[in-house]
């Protein structure tokens, strides 16, 4: 599975919204997921993210590998909550008592984890990397720093390939690197050349950028542009008002 899910353009109203609107949606969902402590509401939140993703034309099958990767985390949380949660003990395993409230908290945490990872993935599936840089610039971050995210995305696959090459080279020299424990014990023969090659690349990239006068002018032009339209105002207002109404209702009902 590739580490980064690629962005793909879809021709529909939600997908065309400004990245700032999508960023607001991302933040609102994150805040609500942390504030909510009811499993049913968190499950409804996941349903909402999936529905919005479908409406935006995103391939929701891409969420599955990530949700699957969270299974060990969820199992650990269930075990920990059964041991450490409050409430009456319903069973004992050796000296350890299992608490009945643990199940409810574990379900809450499980749905929260799924909601957070899906909303994270959704954000980067519908925001173009350059648009993200333009969003930072719109928030008055100098372009010298805003454009570095694009650089990191471009460098990522190159360095990934480099690490594979280093593993292969060290294996060819007879270094046994199969298995997680061996990889940790033999971190230096892999990490040192990896870091050194990355730093050499730093010098090359920096020289290339300076030769193109990167950062010389305070302003520059961009091939793409972002625009906050009427639809964005409407969507953003709706999100803020709904989010606030939800928090007030939640506080009155559950807190």
């Amino acid at each position, binding site marked *: 599975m590739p580490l980064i899910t690629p962005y793909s353009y879809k021709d529909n109203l939600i997908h065309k919204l400004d990245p700032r609107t999508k960023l607001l949606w991302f933040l609102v969902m994150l805040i609500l997921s942390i504030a909510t402590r009811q499993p049913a509401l968190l499950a409804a939140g996941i349903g909402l993210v999936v529905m919005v993703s479908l409406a935006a034309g995103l391939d929701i099958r891409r969420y599955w590998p990530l949700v699957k990767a969270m299974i*060990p985390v969820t199992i*650990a949380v269930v075990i920990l909550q059964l041991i450490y949660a409050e409430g009456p003990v319903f069973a004992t395993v050796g000296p350890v008592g299992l608490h009945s409230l643990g199940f409810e908290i574990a379900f809450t945490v499980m749905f929260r984890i799924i909601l957070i990872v899906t909303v994270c993935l959704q954000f980067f599936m519908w925001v173009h990397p350059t648009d993200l840089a333009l969003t930072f610039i719109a928030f008055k971050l100098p372009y010298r720093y805003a454009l570095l995210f694009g650089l990191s995305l471009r460098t990522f696959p190159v360095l990934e390939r480099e*690490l594979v090459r280093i593993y292969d080279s060290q294996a060819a020299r007879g270094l046994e690197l199969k298995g997680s424990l061996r990889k940790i014990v033999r971190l230096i023969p892999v990490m040192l050349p990896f870091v050194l090659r990355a730093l050499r690349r730093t010098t090359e990239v920096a020289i290339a950028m300076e030769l193109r006068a990167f950062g010389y002018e305070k302003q520059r032009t961009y091939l793409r542009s972002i625009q906050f339209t009427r639809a964005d105002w409407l969507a953003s207002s709706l999100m803020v008002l709904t989010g606030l109404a939800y928090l007030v209702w939640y506080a009155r009902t559950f807190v």
Partner: protein
Amino acid sequence: MAQAVAGKAKFGGEEPLSVAQYKYFDFRVKALVGGVILGVVMTIINAGIMERVDTALTGGTWFPFAGGTHSIVSMLSAIFFGLPGAWITGLTNATFAVVTGSTPVAGGFIFNNLLYPIVATLVTRQLSMRKWWHWFVGLIPIVFIGYAPMTYFVHTIFQLPWGVTIRFQTLTNIAAILLAAIFGKLIAEGIRKSGVVN
């Protein structure tokens, strides 16, 4: 030459690991690009190796090995590129953690990786980082202060009791100090000898 003289006064006659240790801020393109690339390095090593080991060992509720790699690379960035570079390394890593959804506490990395470089830069500008004790002692405040925001996020996201969260965080911190002190020193000396940065 002037830096060498200043260094003799500043680091007690000892030559530091990097000339970048003479100043806190470095805004050159090389420092910014170096920050980004080290952030990618950290992400690749963590996502490819360390987080899998952590998930197998702890279920992903605490991160002894990923914390170790994070500390190693953050220290390298602070030593060789100064505070802006170290911030960029941390934020690149945090952004990739959110992009890949590698952990539900990825949002906490943003706050964590803003604080950690500040303490790391402060310490690495007082110690030359050429002796083993510089690493073992210097990393104690860096890790314990730098990782403090994660405690809150682990407690909030996983809804673990404070006592358990603090215990897990302390174990993560100890693992990070040991790994970063041993491997970080070796790698940093390797970089100094190679001359690719200075």
